[in-house]
């Protein structure tokens, strides 16, 4: 009788045991992070804050955005097909993905969108920075493609002691002719935790405007959408931007 009871209880246990799955301990994946910190000269740049140019003009940036595409090392190992920097929405973070930093002591690719520029912006996967849902106004409605760099700001060019930021600066540079090659070597990846390495870029917005070789005079050069007649400023903006963006 006791045995019978025992068997029953045992049976009960067996019959109801859930299939137990033994989870393997996941091997941690190596992670790569790339950040971009905007500066104004030596000061960290914050959106909507006032910064002063060497000539006394003052500026408040409201948006700084750009794309990199087809970033690879020298042997065509790809880091990422497209990355979108959007200071207002994502802060300094730019790229974050699994990978070995040691594969990428050099990086080359494009400032702007290369092969994908004229594809259907709705057809990219949901998590792609090129999917129309993730572009935050960086797309021109398919045919012309993506803006490569967008800088928006308001300036006070009067220097009269009254703060009045009513001078608008809108630089939207895109279209294939303004695509820029980028090439960075001897990259200085820093370990930030056991499995993550980080590469930090510095973007000096003061340099974008004041660079010696081709400074931008915001009183007269304050708007481009890369359309016909705006080539000179478009080229200046994207070249200066490229010069002002460097790994730290």
């Amino acid at each position, binding site marked *: 009788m006791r045995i019978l009871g025992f068997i029953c209880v045992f049976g009960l246990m067996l019959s109801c045991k859930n299939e137990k799955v033994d989870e393997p301990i996941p091997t941690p994946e190596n992670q790569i992070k790339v950040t971009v910190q905007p500066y104004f000269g030596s000061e960290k740049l914050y959106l909507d804050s006032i910064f002063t140019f060497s000539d006394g003009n003052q500026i408040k940036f409201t948006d700084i955005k750009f794309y990199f595409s087809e970033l690879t090392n020298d042997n065509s190992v790809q880091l990422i097909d497209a990355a979108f920097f959007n200071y207002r929405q994502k802060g300094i973070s730019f790229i974050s993905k699994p990978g070995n930093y040691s594969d990428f002591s050099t990086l080359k690719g494009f400032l702007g969108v290369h092969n994908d520029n004229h594809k259907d912006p709705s057809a990219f996967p949901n998590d792609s920075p090129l999917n129309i849902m993730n572009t935050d106004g960086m797309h021109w409605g398919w045919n012309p493609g993506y803006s490569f760099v967008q800088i928006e700001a308001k300036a006070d060019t009067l220097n009269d002691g009254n703060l009045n930021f009513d001078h608008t600066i*809108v630089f939207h540079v895109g279209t294939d002719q303004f695509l820029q090659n980028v090439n960075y070597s001897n990259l200085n990846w820093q370990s930030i935790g056991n499995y993550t390495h980080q590469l930090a870029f510095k973007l000096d917005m003061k340099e974008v405007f004041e660079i010696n070789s081709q400074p931008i005079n915001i009183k007269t050069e304050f708007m481009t959408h890369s359309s016909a007649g705006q080539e000179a400023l478009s080229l200046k903006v994207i070249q200066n931007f490229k010069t002002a963006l460097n790994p730290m």
Partner: protein
Amino acid sequence: MKSVFLLFIGIIIFLSCKKEKVGHQTTPYVLEIPSHFPSMIIPEDNPMTVEGVALGRRLFYEKMLSGDNSMSCASCHSPSAAFSDTAQFSTGIDKQKGTRNSMALFNLGWQNYFFWDGRSATLEEQILQPVPNPIEMHQSWKDAVSKLSADISYKNDFFFAFNTKEFDSTHVSKAIAQFLRTLISGSSKYDVMYKHSNNMTLSTSENITLQTVTPEEWAGYDLFKSLNGADCFHCHNGPLMQVEKFSNNGLDASFTDIGRGAITNNSNDNGKFKVPSLRNIALSAPYMHDGRFQNLDQVINHYSNGVQQSATIDPKMEFAFQGGVQLDTQQKSLLKAFLITLTDYEFINNPKFKAP
């Protein structure tokens, strides 16, 4: 004794191992997403089902959701007005008025923020608000749910949709959210123009529509897109006809409603509102967050020469320094002709979206 004991044990085994009773199986709902649209992200905890959508539709038109059974969601979101309200400010059940114009409802599955100030991040969360709002439907969720529970057919509908006999406000909001996600508008004349300009294959009926696009409509489209013309494209573009962000389009020099600023507590956001889609715009008058403009002519006049400078005006209002884009009479009428191509009659007349 022995057999009783065995029987007893047997029953225990039987009971303890009984699988949880399998309830009703829901049927997955397949969304019809236009070919030029991005895919829609559906929240994992609220998959689309035929039963959920049907229930959501019923609830959207259900007056029991309001305190005195006089008002449903559709009272302020009427299908004939692209699911918005033709009144400047909607009147709630207690005859009180709000300070914001009702919003047109379509393509909500692609929105990241809801309300003019974006205070809700999900549709499910958004839907919980109008029922208890004292100037809208003014009824506690407890009362709303108990009214619905008293109706056997609702009990059944909730059971079929969510497999539960005890439903609450979260089930109501999930069902309505499912219905709202089906309100897809992507078959206007503009869509054919968009697809044609981008070399997408058109169906036979789209090709017929294409032939009906007038030179004025094409010219209006060009003007709309031209950054030296009407300059609308910066904020209203793409398949959704909107860029998802908050912006100050120069309505006022100083603000009575600070909009987004009240949500972020950042004065740099004062006077910014959600950029609305311009789809079905001819049907959803009056316009702007406070319904200040009665018709499209007034809107066009605003952008043409009524733009007000302020600290937070969007830099993309590039011609603000001269009061706007300064269109002449002919350009205004071309622009208006284009805006009317955004009306999607297939959407408006879709029987699946009307009261069940």
